[in-house]
């Protein structure tokens, strides 16, 4: 898989860029939202016939966070944006990426793009009203209904080849399952702990799956603080963060994995929009409104039979049953 190949112009005009604005004064610092924003940009660029994307990430150091994230301040925003940055490298159409921490500079760029009538998301008016629909799948679903396919996310720019090499070195032809278990309670800014998944159930599942399928390798994804010590004792398991790697590497490994399993969270968003087979568990009912499917639906509108949504809190039996179903089907599939 070559992520570095120049995809510009593939179905779009390479001289006509789509402008993406992520202003952190009203957009959240969150992996899932950053990836959904990138996916929306891909879809809108493709719909507008644009063959390139210019991204602007805007941070005012005096007010670096939105009212929903009051813990972000001028002394810690650098760490927070640093830990999120690779998420903005996942569009194959990405032509330039600007991180601007000086609003006057950005506003001159903004007016230039407005005067040139470049397609922009959010629109100039939405930006002025501080409105960004970073959660919903409305545009993505509409695009899929019209075209029957989606312009998917790629591994972060430059990390794809690394992930291929990692698989050759560490995975040795095994069936690779990328796993992310949401543990907000272990995060640096704990929030929405009700969305956390039960770790003991996942431990038990991994032990049982490894005992039954020796060919399976689990890659545990997530921040270094977000998994417990028990993980280190599990069989058939690798933790990229404990091997010195970061978010860019993890997103690339997920992109190259055979299957993703995990709670509804940032990594699940990557799996959703990069075309991986997946099981996403513990989805909040209120999310149904944003993704435009009823509570309990087994698939997204653009999902395949190997892309499964499970709305309840998971337990080891459920995880094992879904894993065996997906593993069985995917193992039968001829290698690409």
């Amino acid at each position, binding site marked *: 898989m070559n992520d570095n190949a120049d995809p510009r112009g593939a179905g779009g005009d390479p001289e006509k860029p789509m402008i993406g604005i992520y202003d952190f004064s009203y957009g959240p610092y969150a992996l899932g939202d950053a990836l959904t924003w990138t996916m929306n940009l891909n879809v809108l660029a493709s719909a507008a016939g644009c063959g390139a994307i210019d991204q602007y990430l805007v941070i005012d150091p005096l007010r670096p966070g939105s009212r929903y994230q009051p813990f972000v301040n001028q002394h810690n925003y650098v760490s927070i944006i640093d830990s999120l940055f690779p998420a903005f490298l996942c569009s194959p159409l990405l032509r330039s990426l600007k991180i601007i921490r000086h609003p006057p500079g950005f506003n001159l760029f903004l007016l230039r793009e407005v005067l040139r009538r470049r397609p922009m998301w959010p629109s100039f008016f939405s930006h002025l009203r501080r409105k960004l629909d970073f959660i919903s799948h409305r545009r993505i679903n509409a695009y899929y209904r019209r075209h029957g396919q989606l312009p998917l996310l790629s591994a972060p720019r430059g990390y794809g080849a690394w992930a291929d090499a990692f698989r050759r070195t560490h995975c040795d032809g095994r069936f690779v399952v990328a796993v992310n278990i949401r543990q907000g309670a272990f995060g640096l800014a704990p929030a929405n702990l009700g969305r956390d998944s039960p770790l003991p159930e996942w431990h038990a599942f991994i032990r049982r799956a490894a005992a039954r399928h020796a060919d399976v390798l689990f890659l545990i994804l997530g921040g270094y603080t977000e998994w417990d010590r028990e993980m280190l004792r599990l069989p058939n398991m690798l933790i990229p963060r404990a091997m010195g790697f970061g978010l*860019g590497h993890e997103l690339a490994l997920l992109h190259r994995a055979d299957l993703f399993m995990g709670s509804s969270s940032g990594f699940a968003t990557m799996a959703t929009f990069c075309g991986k087979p997946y099981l996403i568990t513990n989805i909040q009912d209120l999310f149904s409104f944003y993704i435009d499917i009823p509570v309990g639906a087994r698939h997204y509108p653009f999902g395949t039979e190997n892309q499964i949504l499970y709305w309840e809190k998971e337990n080891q039996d459920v995880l094992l049953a879904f894993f065996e179903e997906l593993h069985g089907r995917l193992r039968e599939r001829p290698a690409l």
Partner: protein
Amino acid sequence: MRANSKLVLFRRRLISFTYRVLNRLQFFPITLLYVWFNAALKLIVLRLGLGVVRVGSATGDVSSLPRDAMVWLGSASSGPPGHQFDVCLRLSRENAAAELHDVFSVALTFPRIQSVGLYWDSSSLDDDLHILQSKRDRSRRALTALHEEIGARGSTQLVEFLHSDHGELVLPVATSRDAQTLLKRYAGAADVVCLNLSMELRALADAVVRACPHIRFCHFSPEPPESAGAANSQSFFGWGLTLHERMALVQAADAYVGAFDELGCTAVISRRPAILLGGGSGVQPDRVSRDGIAVWLPGQPDPTALTKMVLQFLSDRLAARTK
């Protein structure tokens, strides 16, 4: 003259006040006013010739992009106090490697950089330079002079970096605090030395750790030497430290011995006693020293002589620090 400086001060205060008011009132149509006000402000800055932009190109063969970018940014972001910089980096789509995150992390540590642009296309870079540059700098000759090929000058660039003044390097406060806390708990009042040595130099690490039982050593290498299990030695590889966290440990430690990579650059910029090993290319000098505080050995010195030199350096520098 006095009346003029009063006027300048008044104008600055008025701009600052307007900016703060508009920034507080973030609703339409105030936000539109804010956009126009900010854009006008930027245009004035450009007209006055105060816009400073640095353009680096990393499309060729770069041995370590984060290190070379740090060397370049360290030099590029030095200048008169108060000056802010815009930085543009032209990258290759074809040769992209898994190191962009580190480049970004490095750029964030220079607080005088107010924007960083990463470009995989020359036309978009040229287009943006018109917005970033002062009008008088927009001639073709000025544009050409502006571009610097990152890492192209090999060892010469590293020698200049070692001797030059650098832009201030500021890590996030929580990261620096955590590094201080970690070393307080690990070493107490003892001296701490960061070792960042490759597999080939593990004998050096073992010898130094054995010879200095009073010093605490922090290893960053993926392949920790035998001595990493010694009482005065700890491997931090596998601790999941980010680049900022490792840089903060280098800043918090008393000396650094190891590769001339991002951590080596951190030691140099932070003026920590440092022995830097390897990392050059092209024609290389035998040894380069900056005031005896930082010494760079680009080649492959005899292991015995190197061990002796490192021990002498640590003894001298750590003693000098406590005097």
